[in-house]
């Protein structure tokens, strides 16, 4: 600010702006600074709550066995009561202070975790990590809504994802566990509220990333062993297209163009590319369990696939027929719609499956190169080239192709990088000149 003030004075002294303009600029800056609150107190209060809370958990884990049970119980409940008091104070006396509100809520969240841990430690409760997380999630859920805390909501999503992996992936015996979906649904209204009321906040942007990631991990918990395994594989492919569509639709509704804030779109897009890269190899198709064997459609995997597929078909139709949604040339919706047929073909003929995988990768690459050129955006252009490069690198490991063909592929893509980038930069310079000319 000080630097800007001296610059203003300099401009005024040089006669470029007059005094009233200088005052108006200064007033505008001041007003802008007031509208954009200082984030430092918030960051420090969150860090402080996190460190103190984790410190308490570690102290608890030390397990003070010379204290008697009642003193231990008192100590277990003390941080919870403190956290509740701080949250109450924050809402009563500092309702407009985000640092106070989020900090106290985060502390309360950690204190409840420490308290539950300590109670189960005092009474030597057997109980897996997943059952501990389960209780903790329940106790934390009201904090999100009562204290309207975005920070706690973020940790909640991390927590329920951890719970899902503990309960199903690492847990034994493996079984269905639908609680993850219940927890996710329970926190969804808060996320929607954040989207509506705090669209630009960093917390909301973190949610845009963490929720699609969490759902992607959570989807695997629905997997049923033994039967119809390829339906879940297929379900995943379509699910990722679904995430992408959510991201695309929200971009088209809100008009927000920045990709870094659109986790749904990015997770869906990058995930799809990852799966396609795997499917561009023939052995992947050869080893996949056949879709129509072992009565796969009687399994839960089929049900999961059917629900996802129906949802994605619906959203594709809705978005593809809206001109403004501008989705008609994007290859991903078509991948989502055609995926079941691609799987049937690919399992019948693995080479065909690999070819289709490659075609979609190429289409995605070309689409982004085209979009980058059209929008004059080097980032998107190079992203498209990167997709093709990844594909070519995968082909490097394909022993079916001769060295000459692989060498030529590399040459072509390398040249592509050079030429397209140079073309775009040249075009930019030309347009810059044409804009400048009339002013000269």
């Amino acid at each position, binding site marked *: 600010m000080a630097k800007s003030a001296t610059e203003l004075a300099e401009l005024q002294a040089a006669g470029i702006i007059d005094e009233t303009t200088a005052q108006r600029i200064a007033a505008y800056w001041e007003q802008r600074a007031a509208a954009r609150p200082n984030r430092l107190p918030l960051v420090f209060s969150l860090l402080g709550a996190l460190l103190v809370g984790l410190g308490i958990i570690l102290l608890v884990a030390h397990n003070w066995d010379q204290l008697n049970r009642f003193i231990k119980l008192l100590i277990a409940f003390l941080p919870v009561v403190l956290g509740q008091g701080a949250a109450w104070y924050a*809402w009563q006396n500092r309702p407009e202070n985000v640092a106070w509100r989020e900090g106290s809520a985060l502390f309360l969240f950690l204190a409840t975790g420490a308290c539950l841990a300590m109670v189960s430690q005092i009474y030597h409760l057997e109980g897996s990590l997943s059952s501990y997380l389960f209780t903790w999630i329940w106790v934390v859920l*009201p904090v999100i809504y009562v204290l309207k805390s975005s920070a706690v909501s973020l940790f909640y999503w991390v927590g329920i994802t951890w719970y899902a992996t503990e309960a199903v992936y690492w847990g034994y015996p493996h079984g269905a566990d639908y609680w993850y979906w219940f927890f996710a649904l329970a926190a969804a209204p808060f996320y929607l509220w954040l989207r509506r009321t705090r669209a630009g906040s960093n917390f909301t942007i973190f949610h845009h990333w963490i929720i699609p990631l969490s759902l992607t991990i959570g989807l695997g918990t629905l997997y049923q062993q033994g039967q119809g395994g390829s339906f879940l594989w297929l379900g995943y492919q379509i699910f990722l297209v679904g995430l992408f569509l959510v991201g695309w639709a929200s971009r088209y509704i809100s008009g927000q163009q920045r990709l870094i804030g659109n986790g749904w779109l990015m997770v869906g897009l990058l995930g799809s590319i990852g799966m396609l890269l795997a499917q561009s190899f023939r052995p992947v198709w050869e080893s996949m369990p056949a879709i129509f064997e072992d009565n796969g459609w009687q399994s839960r995997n089929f049900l999961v696939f059917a629900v996802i597929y129906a949802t994605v078909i619906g959203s594709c139709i809705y978005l593809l027929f809206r001109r403004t949604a501008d989705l008609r040339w994007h290859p991903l919706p078509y991948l989502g719609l055609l995926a079941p047929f691609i799987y049937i073909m690919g399992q019948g003929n693995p080479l065909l499956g690999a070819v289709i995988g490659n075609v979609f990768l190429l289409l995605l690459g070309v689409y982004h190169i085209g979009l980058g050129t059209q929008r004059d955006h080097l980032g998107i252009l190079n992203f498209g080239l990167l997709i093709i490069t990844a594909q070519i690198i995968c082909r490097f490991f394909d022993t079916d192709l001769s060295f000459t063909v692989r060498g030529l592929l590399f040459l072509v893509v390398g040249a592509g990088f050079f030429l397209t980038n140079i073309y775009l930069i040249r075009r930019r310079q030309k347009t810059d000149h044409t804009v400048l000319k009339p002013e000269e």
Partner: protein
Amino acid sequence: MNKPVYFFLAFGLMVLFQLGVPLQTAYRYEVALRKGTAFKFDTEPIDPNDPFRGKYVDLRFSPLEDQLPRKTIKQLATQLVPGQTVYATVVTDNKGYARLSGIYPEAPVEDMPYFSAQVNYLNQWDTTGTMISLRYPFERFYLEEHRAPAAEDRYREALRDSTQNVYALVRIRGGLAVLEDVVINGVSITK
């Protein structure tokens, strides 16, 4: 700033819920500890840890095959599924140690000490080895962090000397079992 009434209500409920959940657990186990019947379970401890709850000693108990007749176990193995909750009734044998007297899919109605356990895994084919493995609700004993490894060493020493013994002191009441102590050769593991 005036907050609407429902905020106070919601805040109050949240506070009660947060205190109530751990308090209720503490209360149930406290009652079982004070009023429960004491049993000594023959055990062997090992020492792992948990990120939130710290160091603990993991207890292994003698296999079901040593406690119930083979015929009963064979029959049970065909009826149970992994992950299922079962109820085990306990008696004290003539040496003073606890022994399971039966496994039931439902909680027993007669007035005898029992606790709930989980079926860990089943093996219906190998009729000579372990056919049913149960997870007891008292397999963990939390210890101060520096003591857990030391306790394990003491246990190993006790093993070498066959005259020494290790048991878990468990109190059981109304289907709830609480681990009170682990005793190595007559001395508490916490000493």
